[in-house]
């Protein structure tokens, strides 16, 4: 019998991986194809990491609906998948008295959208009591009780690992090049790693999701990448702000965010710049300067010497302004998760649930009684108590070997990140799964050892170890004949 998949998911970002996990609740044969060397390698890895409350999107939109639904699912995600989530609230800060009507509009919008938890305007006194370090011109704010923060990498990895545990297949370095409707009504998916037949396709291709939609549907979609640039500030400043500090959008712009991350650093950004090139993730002098200038209203005297790194990410901005979800009329069994930009991370579990229910209905999928929703996180040595550390090293001596000094990541964690289902294949993959290399020294000390461990675990030469797959090799060659380096 021919090897036919029930569902092929294009794209291993947060939405694609969430859909893979939701589909695993049914008896399905699911395959996820990811173009790059790793999951969580595009939009999902470079965003604000905020769990949005749901006040921002226009009532009635898919963004509003899925944001609020998704937000309510994160306590369970935290329990089932051990993904770091903190409900630290969000504040939308106004820096001028004239902003009051706009705050009222956001409040009203939030109520209409059905935001859960506390939602009210707080005066300057309460704002300063909550956030003593907010800039001197701040005068009031919208308090969003259901605002939170999450680790976007671990969220995506947890979805993927749990999906894989429950039978979903993942292929990386598998770029889809074409889609064809077969006479039997199935889809043919042509990729760089082979041609597959499937009953349904999920398009979760991020900034490229327009390309796949436009291959199969006359209802054309256009995604233009919108670049955002960010700074990460040393964890020494973790207590500067407690809530995610948004700025009230004004005629001058949407403002930038200053927010603590679940890892203890502080994130500043993003800018918003529409660009043409879907691969252009450079940071720019202008963008970085702009992010800093705008953020300085929230955080006066930002300690520029405490920057750990800068990065940029692309949002998949669609031309309708809203998410484009579900089957286009003229392409049955092709399911779009298109134009999923902010609040996409927050919406991801709700989108995935809805999409998989649609698919299950159409394909008449049966429930999977063996589905196990539990995924254990890689044990984090840095978060263990002394007794836990003792026990961990006793069970696996590799926990006694700290590889990343800045973030206290042990060899045991790095090896496990590689060995897990949908495990790390490159340096950046290890970084996202363990934080090794994400700290103050930015991988200066740990890179040589991480290269060694990757080479050992993957059975490759150190010269074949890459930063993020493809041609991103770290090292050029051996100084001596191979094998004679350690005479």
């Amino acid at each position, binding site marked *: 019998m021919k090897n036919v998949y029930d569902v092929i998911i294009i794209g291993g970002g947060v939405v694609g991986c969430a859909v893979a996990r939701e589909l695993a609740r049914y008896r399905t044969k699911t395959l996820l194809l990811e173009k790059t060397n790793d999951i969580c390698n595009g939009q999902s890895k470079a965003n604000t990491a905020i769990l949005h409350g749901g006040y921002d999107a226009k009532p009635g939109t898919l963004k509003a609906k899925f944001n609020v639904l998704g937000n309510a699912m994160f306590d369970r995600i935290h329990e089932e998948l051990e993904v770091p989530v903190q409900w630290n609230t969000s504040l939308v800060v106004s820096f001028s008295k004239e902003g009051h009507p706009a705050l009222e509009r956001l409040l009203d919008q939030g109520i209409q959208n059905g935001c859960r938890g506390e939602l009210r305007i707080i005066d300057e006194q309460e704002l300063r009591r909550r956030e003593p370090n907010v800039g001197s011109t701040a005068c009031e704010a919208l308090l969003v009780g259901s605002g939170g923060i999450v680790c976007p990498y671990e969220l995506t990895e947890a979805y993927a690992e749990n999906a894989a545990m429950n039978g979903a297949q993942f292929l990386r370095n598998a770029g889809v090049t074409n889609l064809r409707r077969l006479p039997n009504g199935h889809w043919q998916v042509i990729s760089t790693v082979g041609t597959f037949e499937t009953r349904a396709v999920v398009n979760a291709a991020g900034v490229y999701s327009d390309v796949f939609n436009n291959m199969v549907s006359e209802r054309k979609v256009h995604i233009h990448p919108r670049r955002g640039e960010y*700074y*990460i500030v040393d964890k020494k400043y973790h207590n500067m702000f407690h809530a995610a500090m948004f700025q009230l959008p004004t005629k001058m712009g949407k403002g930038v965010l200053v927010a603590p991350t679940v890892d203890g650093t502080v994130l500043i950004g993003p800018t918003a710049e529409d660009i043409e090139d879907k*691969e252009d*993730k*450079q*940071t*720019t*002098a202008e*963008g*970085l300067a702009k992010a800093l200038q705008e953020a300085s209203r929230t955080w006066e005297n930002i300690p*520029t*010497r405490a*920057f*750990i*790194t*800068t*990065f940029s990410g692309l949002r998949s901005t669609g031309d309708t302004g809203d998410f484009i979800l579900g089957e286009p009329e003229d392409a049955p069994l092709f399911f779009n998760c298109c134009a999923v930009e902010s609040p996409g991370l927050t919406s991801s579990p709700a989108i995935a649930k809805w999409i998989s229910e649609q698919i299950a209905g159409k394909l008449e999928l049966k429930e999977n009684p063996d589905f196990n929703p539990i995924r254990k996180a890689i044990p984090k040595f840095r978060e263990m108590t*002394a007794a836990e*550390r*003792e026990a961990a*090293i*006793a069970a696996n*001596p*590799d*926990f*006694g*070997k*700290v590889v990343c*000094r*800045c973030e*206290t990541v042990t060899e045991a964690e790095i090896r496990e990140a590689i060995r897990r289902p949908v495990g790390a294949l490159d340096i950046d993959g290890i970084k996202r799964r363990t934080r090794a290399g994400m700290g*103050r*020294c*930015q*991988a*200066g*000390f740990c*890179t*040589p050892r991480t290269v060694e461990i990757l080479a050992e675990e993957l059975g490759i030469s*150190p*010269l074949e170890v*890459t*930063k993020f797959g*493809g*041609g*991103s*090799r*770290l*090292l*050029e*060659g*051996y*100084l*001596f004949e191979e094998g*004679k*380096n*350690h005479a």
Partner: protein
Amino acid sequence: MRKTDILIIGGGPAGLAAAVGAYEAGARDILILDREERLGGILKQCIHNGFGLHTFKEELTGPEYAQRFIEKVLEYQIPYQTETMVIDVSPEKVATCVSRQKGLERIEAKAIILCMGCRERPRGSLGTPGERCPGIFTAGTAQRFTNLEGLMPGKEVVILGSGDIGLIMARRMTFLGAKVHACVELMPYSSGLKRNIVQCLDDFGIPLLLSHTVVDIHGREHLTGVTVAEVGPDLKPIPGTEKYFPCDTLLLSVGLIPENELSEMAGVKIAPTTSGAEVDEQLQTSVPGIFSAGNVLHVHDLVDFVSEEAMKAGANAFRYVQGTLSKGGRKVPVQMGFGVGGIVPQFVSENAEDKVSFMFRPRNVYRNAKVIVELNGEQIYSKKSMILAPGEMVNLSLPPEKLAGLKTADSILVRIEVPEA
């Protein structure tokens, strides 16, 4: 809980010398902890020569220099434990460490000497725009790859920053067959030693571009080139001066940062000017019984001075354990006057008994300038130098009789005086 008189955190040049210093002062219960497989710290990868001119009156390589101290440690049978990472130090001087062999251990010490060294400033902290591709290394990481792992990062090299490791790596990469196109320095002067500029750049015809910086980094999958521009007096790039350098490797030598995470856990006060512990002339930090020496205290130019400083810290730690370390009375703050950056020590005891050494880096290049120390408005030291530069530390010491005035002083001032134009 394990107990020891003197716990030394770090087995690099500072830690080794601290152990030797403590032993030679009389200590017999010492323990050195190091996170790497072998003792020697960063010297293990510094295979160039030029070490030891002051200490041994001969030119040694880094590993040779380290070996001199390792042999003393072995001869004195000072215990050490490698592949052991200290993850916490409490103000009560209890260190928590982990290792494969012994798991999690807590060690209570009567005195601790902090010798953790420093780390390199990474690209991320510079905010240099452009691609985030491989091919960008701190100079020390590249040095580890070439000198310890036998692996070559790349063949076409640009170096950003002219710190000593960057200069040394310019020569090293040239020896290994790479073409080093330029060494680019933001400031109008190098932060490295003059002798390294001559021996590592000039001798190989590598241009040193002062008042220049990297303004863009190119290459999506791997580094393909950098854009370099001249900067004005405000250190901002001057539009129109951009020049493209094709390269597959960018080495960064843009500053060293003392690694004081453990010091801060122990409650040790950190001086913003050095990013190291605040110490008195005995190298004791703000926490009694905790001492600091070497690059974790302040970034040195020569390892010889690290050894000297650490031996003193070791001896003082033993005196502290014995209860014979002078209490010294009131601490008189050291003021940094014109031209003085990051001085050590930050305090001098009013009853200082031995000679007191001061080390600092000049903030700029000064010609025919004088280094002056003033106490109660009176000059107690003055020395003229042909040239003072940030790359070379000023090291001066004062005998106790010069410091008699400390008892009535509010502060002691160290400054540079430049001749009038």
